[in-house]
């Protein structure tokens, strides 16, 4: 028990929690934007893979770190656009299209990686984002390591939370996006484009998801591995329901998940002798399911989620 308190008080634990939460923050925000506009995007898992692969590949080819981030965002946007075309103007099943995007994006990434690097035994490494070194702030006790020695991408994720919150709650665009997810007919009656709002939201949301993947290869690790996304995208889909489609709660959910994940790694080293390590590995997924079960009853789904809308047909 004293071990647990020791862990919870350590700065390295909270720094790890925020680090683990970073890709999820990007992913949950992306999923939130898509779903607020009324479209479920199960392409998220594959878009994570694409972001991880293309961002890493761009840097490896010499594009620079921020060039890699741009490439990752654009490739996420491309697969988002594909999902948007299939689900918005064509009105096809959002479930099946999303799974199709995940399978397609994953196999495109794996195939491209293998084709570019046919015979590598150990994955080539890049120089990833380095921890920030801000005078004074980074040297603060506790807050320094937890907040100010993260990489620039983590800060980008936190700023994105604020931006998404602002756009959703304080701008006409945000009102329109939420309206198109609740009642597209009313948006159409206002003379706004339902298709445009939905497609735009999916494209922007998908590029955020891709940044979550890019964080994995460009900040958390320094190389691309097959299977490295490992369900993080699906976890985001659970977290967005847990967060009832609110950016602030999404950040909270991602941090909560990150801290449980950081805790299980530490408990594993503490208690590995008594309990098989896999028990701890299961914890994050089981927690996501539990969070979903708790949130499901009161979940206030965007009312037009999963419902296609066609112009001139009420």
């Amino acid at each position, binding site marked *: 028990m004293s071990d647990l308190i020791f862990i919870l008080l350590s700065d390295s634990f909270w720094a790890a929690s925020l680090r683990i939460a970073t890709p999820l923050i990007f992913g949950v925000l992306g999923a939130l934007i898509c779903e607020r506009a009324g479209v479920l995007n199960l392409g998220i898992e594959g878009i994570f893979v694409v972001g991880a692969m293309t961002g890493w590949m761009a840097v490896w080819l010499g594009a620079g770190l921020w060039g890699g981030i741009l490439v990752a965002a654009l490739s996420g946007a491309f697969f988002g656009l594909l999902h948007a075309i299939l689900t918005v103007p064509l009105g*096809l099943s959002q479930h*099946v299209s999303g799974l199709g995007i995940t399978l*397609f994006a994953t196999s495109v990434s794996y*195939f491209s990686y293998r084709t570019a690097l*046919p015979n590598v035994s150990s994955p080539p490494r890049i120089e990833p984002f380095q921890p920030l070194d801000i005078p004074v702030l980074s040297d603060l006790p506790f807050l320094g390591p937890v907040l100010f020695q993260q990489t620039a991408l983590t800060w980008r994720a936190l700023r994105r939370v604020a931006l998404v919150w602002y756009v959703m709650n304080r701008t006409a665009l945000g009102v329109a996006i939420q309206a198109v997810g609740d009642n597209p007919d009313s948006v159409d009656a206002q003379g706004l484009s339902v298709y445009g709002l939905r497609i735009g939201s999916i494209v922007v949301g998908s590029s955020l998801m891709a940044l979550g993947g890019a964080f994995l290869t460009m900040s958390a690790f320094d190389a691309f591995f097959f299977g490295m996304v490992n369900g993080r995208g*699906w976890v985001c889909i*659970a977290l967005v329901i847990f967060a009832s489609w609110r950016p602030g709660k999404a950040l909270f959910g991602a941090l909560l998940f990150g801290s449980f994940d950081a805790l299980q790694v530490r408990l594993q080293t503490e208690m590995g002798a008594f309990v098989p390590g896999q028990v701890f590995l299961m914890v994050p997924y089981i927690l996501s*399911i539990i969070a979903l*079960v708790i949130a499901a*009853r009161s979940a206030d789904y965007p009312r037009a989620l999963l419902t296609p809308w066609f112009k001139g047909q009420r």
Partner: protein
Amino acid sequence: MIRIEPRTGTSRVFSFVIPILSAIVALALAAVPLWFAGANVIAAYGEMVTGVFGSVFSTSEMLTRATPLIFTGLAAALAFRAKLWNIGAEGQLYLGAMAAVAIGSGAFDVPGIILLPLIIVLGAAAGAAGMAVPTYLKTRFGADEVVTTLLLNFVILIFLQMMLEGPLQDPMGLGWPQSSPILDQGMLPPLMDRMRVHSGLIIALVAAGIAQFMLARSVWGFKLRAVGENAAAARHAGIRVNRSLFGVAIISGGLAGLAGVSEVAGLKGYLTADLSPGFGFTGIVVAMLAGLSPVGVVVAALFIASVFVGADSMSRAMGVSSFIADLIVSMSLLCVLVGGFVARYRIVRADAGKAPV
């Protein structure tokens, strides 16, 4: 202006033509990645065809590969018919396989004659249990089964690794994470000499036949389709929706469990954590290509298995990454989706009344 409107009376021809066209388009689109990989595209297609139909052995390999896909395809097709989104067939497959090696590797004293039937029944039951849990969470708490089944895949895979390094580990396996082999009496007999194709294929075909009959002709199938098309209306008509969902969940999970049984007791003989290269997810593609029809699942599984086996031998011969197979499979899913749109809707000029363009 153009406008999209539903077709009045969908032609039955579409339901045959669309999947075939989608498959052809996906295969044709594979030329792009092949060309990028620097392969001779024509020769590559040639290699794929001979890789599947070049010899009796290669065709038998294709049938071997199709067997688990028929099971997982049926699992997806039946559940999707009721709009129960079982994306967890991959995990349910491993539950079935774990049950099979747990009972089949001689840890329990089971008379030889009933060992194989017991393996089959328990494997199906384990898969069914794996789908019953998310269905309970859906009907009782309203937890979205898409997310729960997806996440349970990971939980089950980690549980599998725990079992393979623990209770199920082969004591003679030199510490490898693999199970003890299934006893000979517990194995599904092979269908042909010196070939790997096994009697799991027969079970899969029988399952498809039963599923087709039940879906089209039985009251159970009628209720299931009613629930899928409009759950509220079905409830209003006195159908117990939750009961129907549980019924199809158990059958869907059971079929996925049988995929695991068939792979482990028909092909591999022992269980490792890489038993399935994503059969659960590929089953979804199979089901969609089949238009969610059980008989169609058999045809679609043969096609997808041909893609995998053909692309495997092509990639060996031409030095192209074998991920090309996954690429073709995922493209055929997207193609059949778009094809389904063409079948259901037509684009009309808004100012030209009802005239089709």
